């Protein structure tokens, strides 16, 4: 396998694709969002339960390529237990990483596994799909502040 491809399809990515974490539905969600990439048909549906400004539970459903499924799975693990503000900052930083805007910032090993995506411009949207949905869920009009 060439190096770039190995960077893209790291063990962590393949593992999260095969056995996604937090796949399913949240009981009594306080906010939800749907992400859809019309170009390729990838879909992700996010459900969250936010209480006192903190993400207590988050789950996703949907279908897509290994990158989008692994990214959604890794995202749920990264933000559960975090405050809404922390999650939004992380989302911003993650997107800077995969688009190549910020090459210096370091993440947990798990999230950093997706850094290889920046060498594949056509696949960046796969990695950011779930994060865009997260932002929409947390900032939506019927958002979590009401919960």
């Amino acid at each position: 396998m060439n190096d770039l491809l190995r960077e893209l399809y790291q063990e962590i990515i393949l593992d999260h694709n095969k056995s996604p974490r937090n796949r399913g539905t949240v009981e009594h969600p306080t906010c939800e969002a749907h992400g859809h990439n019309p170009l390729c048909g990838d879909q992700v549906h996010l459900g969250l339960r936010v209480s006192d400004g903190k993400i207590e539970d988050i789950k996703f459903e949907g279908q897509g390529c290994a990158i989008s499924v692994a990214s959604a799975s890794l995202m749920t693990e990264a933000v559960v237990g975090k405050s809404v503000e922390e999650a939004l900052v992380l989302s911003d930083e993650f997107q800077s990483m995969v688009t190549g805007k910020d090459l210096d910032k370091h993440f947990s090993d798990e999230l950093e596994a997706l850094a290889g995506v920046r060498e594949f411009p056509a696949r960046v949207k796969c990695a950011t799909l779930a994060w865009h949905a997260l932002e929409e869920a947390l900032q939506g009009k019927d958002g979590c502040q009401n919960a």
Partner: protein
Amino acid sequence: MATVGTQIGNLRAEFPALHQTVNGRPLAYLDTAASAQRPLQVIEAVSEYEKTTHANVHRGVHSLSQRATDLFEEARALIAAFLNAESEREIVFTKGCTEAINLVAHSWGRQNLQEGDRILLSTMEHHANIVPWQIVAAETGATVEPIPITDDGDIDLLAYQDMLDRRVKFVGCVHVSNAIGTINPVEKIVAMAKEIGATTLVDGAQGCPHGLADVREIGADFYTVSGHKMYAPTGVGCLYGRYEILKSMSPYQTGGNMIRTVSFSGSTFADPPDRFEPGTPNISGFIGLGAAVRFLNQVGFESIVRHERGLTNLVISMLADIEGVSIIGKPAHRSSTISFTMNGVHPHDIGTVLDSEGVAIRAGHHCCMPLMERLGLPATARASFGLYSNLEDVEALIRGVKKVREVFA
């Protein structure tokens, strides 16, 4: 097998874009159904025109404009003969199939459809032959209904027969499926529609490159052509329309060239095809289309089809031998477009791994979401072969697919 790929293999020299490495591997371009590469004859015809002949067409009294007009109209004559149309007057130049279908929907559709009328479209249509009809149906009160397909990926002719009644005013059908390669029996589909007096359109985007486009044999009122699927530049194509029906239709877009007279008290319109060709066209592109027709005529469809069929049969049998690979559809007749899926691997990931091996395929829904829904698939990987494809391309594809298996073991 030794003969496959050698028959017209020398033609590869005519396609400069094929001779490059991608990600360190020789390019295996298997995305011809999305857009075919261009032969030197086309590239040079366009370049020669740009360098020596360019002027606006149908306008000037000066010599350069006349020469440009002659070349432009020669392209129309070439495509008319290619389609076996009765006359060049039946060829309306458009940007491609999408614009051609929109023209028919917005002109013929708005003029002829009304409340309660039925529009039948096959389930395997490209979005370009669905969405314009939905727009016009919403405006006119007509309904759009899908003609079912079988599990093999053929149009269900019995179900189609049952749908036909006097309220069916329009039947639209793709000649060759861009997604799964089915060659539809369009002569029969059109004949059945004619029996109840419906108007018919065949989307010929994928029919033209395989020598299937004979409008008199097919018998449809409209047939659409996309240049870049048949080795011509992008942004050019045409609408074939029976002259009588074109003559009955109102303008779609309006402006210069399409008029007879203009005054502020009103305007009158030119006869077809000018009526449907406002504005300055993509002149060099149409000259490229003419050159592509000449090129295809020189090569000859008999050898093109034999060559593509040989490669297609080989690829299907080799893919089927790889564990976990499924070929999508088993139509009675198929073109050189092959859709497949792999257990546990999304088509996008197949596409990325193949690209790392220099193999260019398409992955996605192929602008056929209703078909994908019918097949119960979010997407497929699609390899499509053209007249320049060869055995090395096939080997690269198979090697790549095996590598996908390794990565996602």
